[in-house]
């Protein structure tokens, strides 16, 4: 669990949603599940609340007054790798992909079941089992699992926890090809197959950070028709 957790709670969650009833309902459900939460109703106030509250996870509605949810997402990403779960009323491809590309880790389509949302939150706040402080290598990258850092030639690369998890998952079994469904299960915690676009978008984001040339990836390699695997080096 994160070190910033207050005693007695499982985590701090910032809820950014302009619908007051939904926000309040969310905070009730989250409290029942043992999370501490803070509400914010405007997009332009979200950053201030975020810096002030320092949450472990952000639930972010896409349609917000003041500032678009997408923009808020980009701003948070600019200064933090904190998990962001989008709440979207539109299951349409474009909205989801734009949201994911702007930095969100996962999304839930309204109307969602409270249990589904909590499962998403838990999955995002869960950490890999860090019992052994192993050091993994993938390509010319060195991954310190316990220290949660990735370095290339000694200089650290900043990854969000999700991107880190994705990379570690691939690096632990260098020769195995992971299908998108398996990755969804292992990294995102989905029991049943969900939207494989999640995987595609995040692999792109990860590549843009760790690859020398994201157009010709060497670290996260696509296996056509199957999925992804760690680079062969």
């Amino acid at each position, binding site marked *: 669990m994160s070190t910033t957790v207050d005693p007695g709670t499982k985590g701090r969650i910032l809820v950014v949603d302009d*619908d007051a*009833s*939904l926000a309040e*309902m*969310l905070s*009730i*459900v989250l409290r*029942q599940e043992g999370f501490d939460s803070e509400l914010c109703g405007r997009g332009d106030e979200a950053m201030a609340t975020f810096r002030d509250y320092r949450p472990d996870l952000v639930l972010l509605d896409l*349609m917000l007054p003041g500032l678009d949810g997408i923009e808020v997402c980009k701003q948070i990403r600019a200064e933090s790798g904190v998990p962001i779960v989008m*709440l979207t*009323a*539109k299951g*349409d*491809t474009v909205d989801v992909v734009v949201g994911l590309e702007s930095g969100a880790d996962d999304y839930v*389509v*309204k*109307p*969602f*079941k*409270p*249990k589904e949302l909590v499962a998403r939150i838990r999955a995002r706040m869960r950490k890999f089992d860090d019992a052994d402080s192993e050091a993994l290598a993938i390509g010319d990258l060195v991954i310190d699992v316990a220290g949660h850092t990735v370095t290339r030639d000694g200089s650290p690369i900043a990854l969000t926890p999700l991107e880190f998890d994705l990379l570690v998952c691939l690096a632990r079994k260098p020769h195995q090809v992971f*299908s998108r*469904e398996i990755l969804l299960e292992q990294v995102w915690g989905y029991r*049943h*197959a969900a*939207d*494989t*676009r999640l995987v595609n978008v995040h692999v792109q984001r990860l590549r843009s950070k760790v690859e020398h040339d994201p157009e010709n990836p060497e670290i996260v390699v696509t296996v*056509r*028709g199957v999925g992804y695997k760690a680079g062969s080096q």
Partner: protein
Amino acid sequence: MLRRVLTVWRRSIQARVVVTTVLLSALAVSAVGWLLLQQVRDGLLQHRVDAVLAESATEVADARDRLSAASSVDVDASGQQRDLVEPIIQRGATRGFDVVMAGPINRDGENPGGRIADGGAEFSPGLDTASVPVRLEDHFARRDGTAWTYTTIRSTDGDTVTSVPGIVVGSQVELPADGLTYVLYFLYPLNEEQETLGLVTRALLAAGALLLLLVAGVTWLVTRQVVTPIRLARQVAERLAAGQLQERLRVHGEDDLARLAISFNQMASNLQRQIRQLEELSRVQRRFTSDVSHELRTPLTTVRMAGDVLHDARGRFDPAASRAAELLQTELDRFERLLVDLLEISRFDAGAAVLETDDVNLVDVVHRVVDAAQPLARKRGVEVAVRAPDRPCLAEADVRRVERILRNLVANAIDHAAAPPTPGVPAIVVSVDADDQAAAVAVRDYGVGLAPGESAMVFNRFWRADPARDRSSGGTGLGLAISLEDTHLHGGWLQAWGRPGGGAQFRLTLPRRVGGPLHHSPLPLVPTDAGERVS
């Protein structure tokens, strides 16, 4: 070559009009020309015959005068004959006619005589006496007077033999020397008339040919004037059809073609306006769907969560409130599914649905769907089996949509499945197969089946086989309609087969490539065991 000519003939109004006009004109010109020629020839000949008859009559009268003047009995018949004919032959040589004087005719004897061939004939030098037709000779053997006919005059001049058409006039004279009748034949050539006729014919032919050329040219020009605007209109219509709705025809003047252009442009404008309206309508509809979606989803989420909280806390309520919380929960589920399905359908109706395609292995998808459906199946005591080949069954498809289709089909089958007809056999069989062109999944159940005609209706929105039957799995009635739309988006087939009491089979066929040709399905629509199980 012939094919090209035929193509031009089929394609070009201009060519057809020009050719038919020229052909018809040629017919008319030939008829007129022929008539004219006939008239001219008859006129010429009539004129010549009149002249010839007059001249020969003068000659004969002259000869008779001379004979009556010399009507003494001093010389013999042949001498007298020669005396008579010689000056006539000389006059003929200068005036251009030939003369033959045949031997005497004896009408009383067995052989009437008078034949030129019998000898004793006097004639112009070089003339072939066979030029006098035998018919004419026969005529004089029986009758008196003057007679004429057409013939071919042949004559030899040295070695050259000439042969020209001509008129032969015969007249009888009686020689006082022997008192017998001789026939004088005058042969008048018709070369002049022939030449004149030839001249007229050539002139007529030339005039006809020129006339035809003129007609062809005029027709070509006239049709061009009509056809060119039509061709322009065609080009514009093609561009309109290709979606360039701003295309218009240029309007010149106020004639029929200009009015056609005006009408055409009006049609195009109306079309453009209608299409814009439809596009606008579609946009508004899409926008509306999106807005409704958003506006409905947010409060529903709140209600949903509130319902969940109440449901979790129902143990602390009194029995009525507790049951109410349960009902609230289940109905919320149903409401939510209905809303999602309705929004999905309206997205299809607005044409806003898009495919996200990738190579999909249907075997994987089927296993995933069947695994996910196992809890529901177990609850119903129904076994679901998968029959798939070892190789992957690939199709280019949107995996989310394909999965939704298969989820629907399997859930549907579980809903309608009856106890397996023979023990140990699964109540639902999901088969997968693929070939180069297509991949297919068939979901077979052994439930109540479908009545005749129902296999098409199952895809209708909110259709129920039996209105009294409840939807135990909580289907919204839109599942198969959405599945069908999803399938159409892929350019595939979704078909149903069923028999009352014999169960049903739903088959999804997807082309190997989206929008690719689909001619057959790797799996049969009517299951192979369709016959056996009907009791």
